[in-house]
């Protein structure tokens, strides 16, 4: 049965695209058992989840808002992983971008928004680029393992954020109120990204979607993008083909960080309008820096595929919150549920490869598939992340 589908040119591709979705459903199935064991009715719980994610105009908007940083971080992850480097520093890069964006907004409260907001976005973009570029330089020129250095950079960003928000950037009013969570002053209202009133949906979501297509064009239709992918697939061959491998390693990590940094600035201007810290990274980022990795893997490391992937993951996060409110289940169950989805989705890759292998065994079908396959995902099945040497 699987063999028949795998050899069918259209069905196999459909199945391939649906696998992450099926994996999510399977994870929710396991989640249902957990809910049942906790004494909650799984049907009611999942109804609450769906209601919370898609039930109303507001719910849908919240889902998209939640998905926006995931998509932006995920785009950066697509670039990094395609370039053969692993960026686990999304959290730190997001924070670096958010801080710089906030700083720009606080420094020029009187200037027109048309100048300040783009400037803040750029500041976020570049701050993220620096925060990702440092591990890139260390990796390319000194062979420092980027998984570890990006993790360390996350911690450093958190410490700097805590310092700035408790000191130089703290809201002057807050000093008198002695609140527990340090925060900056609210940015000028004119700086708020335009919204689709009455929902919370802001312009950032559109920016992210447009960027997703641009990243696709960049990776598959430009020389630089081609070289990034070439380095990711085979650094040795790329070197002999005259590509300056080290430079492209730095570039992949730098761009990857830049998108996370932009996500940070957009979170500030579109959602929060100020910055705050509870001492940990997740307090401000909501773990978007990590979840973005999952969203990108979910989207098979394809920028356009990451759009629906982040949407689904965003829905899960928003829906889970309302599930928790409706059913009074512990919040940690929700994080555990998300973890389950991640594990299932990543494991679904296995099936995807098995289908690919089965497809290749039928030679006639292979020719058909090759003819039908547009360039769109010609090499998306090749393993972009080279085996990592720790």
């Amino acid at each position: 049965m699987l063999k028949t589908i795998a050899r069918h040119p259209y069905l196999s591709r459909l199945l391939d695209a649906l696998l992450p979705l099926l994996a999510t459903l399977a994870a929710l199935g396991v989640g249902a058992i957990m809910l049942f064991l906790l004494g909650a009715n799984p049907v009611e719980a999942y109804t609450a989840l769906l209601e919370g994610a898609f039930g109303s105009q507001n719910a849908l908007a919240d889902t998209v808002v939640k998905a926006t940083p995931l998509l932006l971080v995920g785009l950066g992850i697509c670039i990094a992983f395609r370039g053969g480097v692993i960026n686990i520093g999304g959290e730190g890069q997001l924070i670096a971008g958010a801080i710089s964006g906030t700083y720009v907004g606080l420094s020029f409260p009187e200037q027109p928004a048309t100048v300040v907001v783009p400037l803040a976005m750029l500041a976020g973009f570049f701050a993220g680029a620096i925060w990702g570029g440092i591990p890139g330089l260390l990796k390319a020129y000194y062979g420092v393992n980027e998984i570890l250095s990006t993790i360390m950079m996350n911690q450093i960003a958190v410490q700097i954020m805590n310092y700035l928000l408790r000191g130089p950037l703290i809201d002057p009013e807050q000093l008198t109120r002695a609140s527990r969570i340090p925060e900056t002053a609210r940015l000028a209202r004119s700086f708020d990204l335009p919204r689709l009133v009455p929902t919370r949906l802001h312009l950032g979501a559109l920016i992210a979607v447009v960027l997703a297509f641009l990243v696709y064009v960049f990776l598959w239709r430009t020389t630089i993008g081609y070289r990034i992918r070439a380095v990711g697939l085979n650094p040795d061959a790329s070197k002999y083909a005259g590509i300056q491998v080290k430079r492209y390693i730095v570039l992949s990590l730098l761009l990857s960080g830049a998108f996370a940094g932009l996500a940070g600035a957009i979170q500030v201007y579109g959602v929060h309008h100020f910055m705050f810290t509870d001492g940990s990274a997740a307090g401000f980022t909501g773990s978007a820096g990590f979840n973005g990795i999952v969203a990108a893997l979910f989207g098979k490391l394809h920028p356009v595929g990451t759009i629906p992937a982040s949407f689904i993951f965003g829905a899960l996060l928003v829906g889970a919150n309302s599930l928790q409110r409706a059913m009074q289940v512990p919040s940690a169950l929700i994080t555990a549920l998300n973890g389950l989805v991640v594990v299932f989705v990543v494991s679904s890759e296995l099936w995807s490869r098995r289908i690919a292998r089965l497809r290749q065994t039928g030679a006639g079908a292979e020719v058909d598939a090759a003819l039908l396959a547009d360039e769109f995902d010609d090499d998306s099945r090749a393993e972009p992340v080279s085996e990592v040497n720790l």
Partner: protein
Amino acid sequence: MNEAELIRILSSIILQSAPLIIAVSGEIITERAGIVNLSLDGTMLMAAMTGFVIGLKADEAYPGSGVWIGFLAAAAVGALFAFIVAFGSIRLRQSQVAIGFVLTLLGDDLSAFLGQNYTRMPGPLVVRKGIPLLQDIPVLGPIFFDQSIVVYFAFALVIFLWWFLNRTQPGLKLRSAGERPEAAFARGVDVNRVRYLYTIAGGALVGIAGATYSLDVKLGWSDGHIRGFGWIALAIVIFGGWAPIRGMVGAILFGATKTLASILQRSFPEVSVVAFNTLPWLLMILVLLVSSSSLTERLIAIAPGPLRRPLNRFLRVAPPLALGTRFEET
């Protein structure tokens, strides 16, 4: 600062580094066999939580035995996580890094969920026991031999692993699986079985390290209790050049810097606490930078001739050749 105070500080450094030594040792045998278990941070959180909670329950049922049952449970959790990494990479042919990373996130979340009713509670504690005679040695005695049992275990483990890796047949097989799996296979070593074995054994040690925190060094459980230490252990493995004794030195150096930072912080309250909190992470990046090959090569190149060979031996570290790669029997 008087002598007694100095001895107290040094003995606390040794105690602080014990769990790191155990975790680093565990990861070293895993990586020397060719597998990267990236899930250390999540594994240690899960193990710390499990060790504490099971220890607490066991202590209620059989007073006095709680600690040991807690350690056993933590080792089992560590072994389970490691098994998932091994199974996923060997059998399911998935990326070791992806599996490890996902397990890190899962361990973090799951430990917060399962341990939520046991935060900030008193629990069983590892006994402190001096070693007769040795503890009476001036200075060294109180630092090394009047310690918690986990400290003795950590040092014994390092010595055992050095001997095991470098002086025994099974140790040779382990290294061959990580360096030249094809050659090992041709000589009759079941490479993937060896990898399963030492990934799981290493994971069990990482689990014990996690419980060492919750049952002794950083007593008790709270959400995100020892978040970050797993990543530090992974960095120390690289710094230690995948060798047990150098790994131990790295762990102690890290413990010393952390202790030093907190002493300095007390002495210079006007310097922001951020500087001291950032220090260990910056230091880790620096350590990775120094122990990575290209910079040390330049260092060695400018050294005077007779110094080059010992420097080379001491500074150059190289990962096991087949680390992180899959081995397929053909």
